[in-house]
C-alpha cells in the first residue's frame, strides 16, 4: 500500500477515501480516555444539578450550590476548606517554588562537584508515597518520640518546640511544609532543565559585559526561565487544589484538629463517602467536585490566556 508521493508533505495522499489506520491508531486511547475520564467528569458535573427529593432523583438546578455556599451546616465546612486550600497553595508558592529555584540555580553552576549526588538526594522524597512521608513526619514531629525537640535543642531553639500537628493554629502550616518537603524536587528539576538549556553564548556574552554572579542570575537567567516558573506555578495550583492523600494520611479523614487542615479534597471524600456518623451524599459530593473543577478550570484558563501570553519567550 505504498503510494509514496515525491513531495515532502506527501503524507496526505490526494485521493484515498478512507485511511482506516488513523482511526485504528487513535481509537484505543480515545476510547479509554473518553469512557473513564471525560464521560465521568461530565456525569459528575451533571449530577451536581440533581438531588434526591422524597426518594426521587430530581433535577434541582443550582439548589445544591446554594446549600453548599449558604446553608449553615455546609457553608462553614466549605468556606473553611476553601480558605485552608488557599493557604495550602500560598505556602507552596512562597516556600516550595523559591527553594526549588534556588536549589536549581546552585546545582546548575558549571563544574560543581557532587551535583549529581545532591540532585539525586534532594529528589528522593518526591518518589515516596504520601503514606510514607505522612507517617515519617508524624513520628518526627511527635512530642512522644522527641526527635524534633532534640534536634532543636542542638541549635538552642528547644523552647520553640510544640506539637505543631496537634494544634489548630499551626497544623495547616505544618502539613503544608511537609508537602513542600516532599515536592520541592519537581520545581528543582524543571528549573534545572530550563537553566541548562540556556545557551553558553548568552552567558558568555553576559560575562563579557561584566555581568556575573547574582546580577547575572537576576538579569539574564531569571527572565529566561520565567516560562518554566509559570508551568511550575500552574502545576502547583492544580496539584494543591485536588490534594487529598497527605492530609488523609497525617490528619485522617476528619482533617483535624478541629478541621483546621480540611481542604477541598478531604471535604469531597468525607461528603461523598461519609465518615463515622455522617452518611455519604452523592449529590453534594458531585457538587463539591464541580466547584473544584471550576476553580481548577479558572486557574488553568488564567494561566493559558493571561500568564502565558504575557511571558516573553526567547528562541535560540
Amino acid at each position, binding site marked *: 500500500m*505504498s503510494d509514496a508521493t515525491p513531495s*515532502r*508533505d*506527501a503524507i*496526505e495522499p490526494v485521493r484515498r477515501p478512507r485511511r482506516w*489506520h*488513523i482511526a*485504528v*491508531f*487513535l481509537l*484505543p*486511547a480515545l476510547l*479509554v480516555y473518553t469512557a*473513564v*475520564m*471525560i464521560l*465521568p467528569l*461530565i*456525569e*459528575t458535573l451533571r449530577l451536581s444539578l440533581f438531588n434526591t427529593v422524597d426518594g426521587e432523583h430530581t433535577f434541582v438546578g443550582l439548589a445544591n450550590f446554594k446549600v453548599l455556599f449558604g446553608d449553615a451546616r455546609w457553608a462553614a465546612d466549605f468556606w473553611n476548606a476553601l480558605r485552608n486550600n488557599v493557604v495550602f497553595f500560598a505556602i507552596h508558592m512562597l516556600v516550595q517554588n523559591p*527553594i526549588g529555584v*534556588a*536549589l536549581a540555580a546552585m546545582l546548575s*553552576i*558549571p563544574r*560543581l562537584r*557532587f551535583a549529581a*549526588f*545532591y*540532585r*539525586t*538526594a*534532594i*529528589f*528522593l*522524597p*518526591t*518518589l*515516596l*508515597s504520601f*503514606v510514607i512521608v505522612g507517617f515519617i*513526619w508524624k*513520628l518526627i514531629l511527635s512530642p*512522644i*518520640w522527641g*526527635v524534633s525537640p532534640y534536634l532543636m535543642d542542638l541549635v538552642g531553639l528547644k523552647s520553640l518546640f510544640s506539637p505543631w500537628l496537634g494544634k489548630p493554629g499551626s497544623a495547616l502550616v505544618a502539613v503544608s511544609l511537609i508537602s513542600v518537603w516532599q515536592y520541592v524536587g519537581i520545581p528543582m*528539576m524543571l528549573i534545572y*532543565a530550563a537553566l*541548562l*538549556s540556556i545557551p553558553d553564548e548568552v552567558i558568555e556574552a553576559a560575562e563579557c559585559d561584566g555581568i*556575573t554572579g547574582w546580577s547575572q542570575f537576576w538579569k539574564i537567567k531569571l527572565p529566561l526561565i520565567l516560562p518554566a516558573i509559570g508551568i511550575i506555578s500552574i502545576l502547583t495550583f*492544580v496539584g494543591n487544589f485536588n490534594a*487529598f492523600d497527605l492530609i488523609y*494520611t497525617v490528619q485522617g479523614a476528619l482533617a483535624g484538629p478541629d478541621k483546621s487542615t480540611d481542604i477541598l479534597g478531604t471535604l*469531597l471524600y468525607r461528603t461523598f463517602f461519609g465518615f463515622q456518623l455522617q452518611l455519604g451524599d452523592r449529590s453534594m459530593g*458531585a457538587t463539591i*467536585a464541580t466547584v473544584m*473543577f471550576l476553580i*481548577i478550570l479558572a486557574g*488553568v484558563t488564567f494561566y493559558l490566556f493571561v500568564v502565558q501570553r504575557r511571558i516573553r519567550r526567547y528562541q535560540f
Partner: protein
Amino acid sequence: MSKARTSLSRTTVVHLALIAYTLISVFPVFLTLINSVKSRNAIFRNPMQLPTAETFDLVGYTTVLGQGDFATYFQNSLIVTVVAIALVLLFGAMAAFALSEYRFRGNTLMGLYLALGIMIPIRLGTVAILQGMVATGLVNTLTALVLVYTAQGIPLAVFILSEFMKTVSDDLKNAGRIDGLSEYAIFFRLVLPLVRPAMATVAVFTMIPIWNDLWFPLILAPSEATKTVTLGAQIFIGQFVTNWNAVLAALSLAIFPVLVLYLLFSRQLIRGITSGAVK
C-alpha cells in the same frame, strides 16, 4: 573559554547550602530506616543512635510480615502499575503517531481534546467513575484501577510523545513506504524504536503517581485481595499506630523497593525528566 572565576568562598557557601538541604531531604528516611531495626526501648531512648549489637532487634519486621499480607499488596501494586504503564505507552504512542504523522480533519481539535486531561485531574470525576465501576461490576478488581490509571496517563503521554515523533525524519518513513511497509509497520518498526528515550520519560512520569496513589485504591478497590501497597501500608499503620517497631518496619518495607529502584535508575530517571530541555 574562561568562565568568570568562581571564588572559593562562593563555592563553599553553595556546597554548605546544598549539603544542608540534602540532609533535610534524606534525614527523615534515614531516621526511619535505622530505627526500624532497633528495640522498642532504644527507639525512644536514643532515636538518633545507629543500631548497636544490644539495641538491634527485628521484632518490628516479624510483626509486619506476620500480620499484613504485604506480598499480595506488593503484587497488586506491581500488576496495576506495569499493566497501566504498558497500556499508556502503547495507546499514547499510537494516538501521538496519528496526531503527529497524518493531517486529517479535526486533528487539532483531537489534540486539544486529549490535552484537556493534562490539566484537569481525573479525581474530580470520582463520583461518576465509582458509579460506572459499580454498574459494570468492576469494583474491587485490579481492572478498575488499571482503567483509571490508563485514562489518567494518556493525555501527558500523547502530548510528550507527539512532540518527539515530530522530530522523526520524514525521509525515513517515506523510504519505508517505498519499500512497501504498511503504516502499522512504519509505526511499530521504524518510529517506536526511535522514540524510546521519550517513552522512558513518559513511563517515569506515569509510574510515580500510580504507585503512590491512595485515592483510587481506597475508593475503587479497598478489598483485602486488591489492596495496593500504599493502601495496605496506610491501613496497617493506622491499626498499629502505638506499636512503633511495627510502624517503623512497615515504613521501611514500603520505602525499600522505591529506594533500591531509585538508586539503580536515578541517572536515567533524572536524565528523562530533564531531557525535555537538554536533549
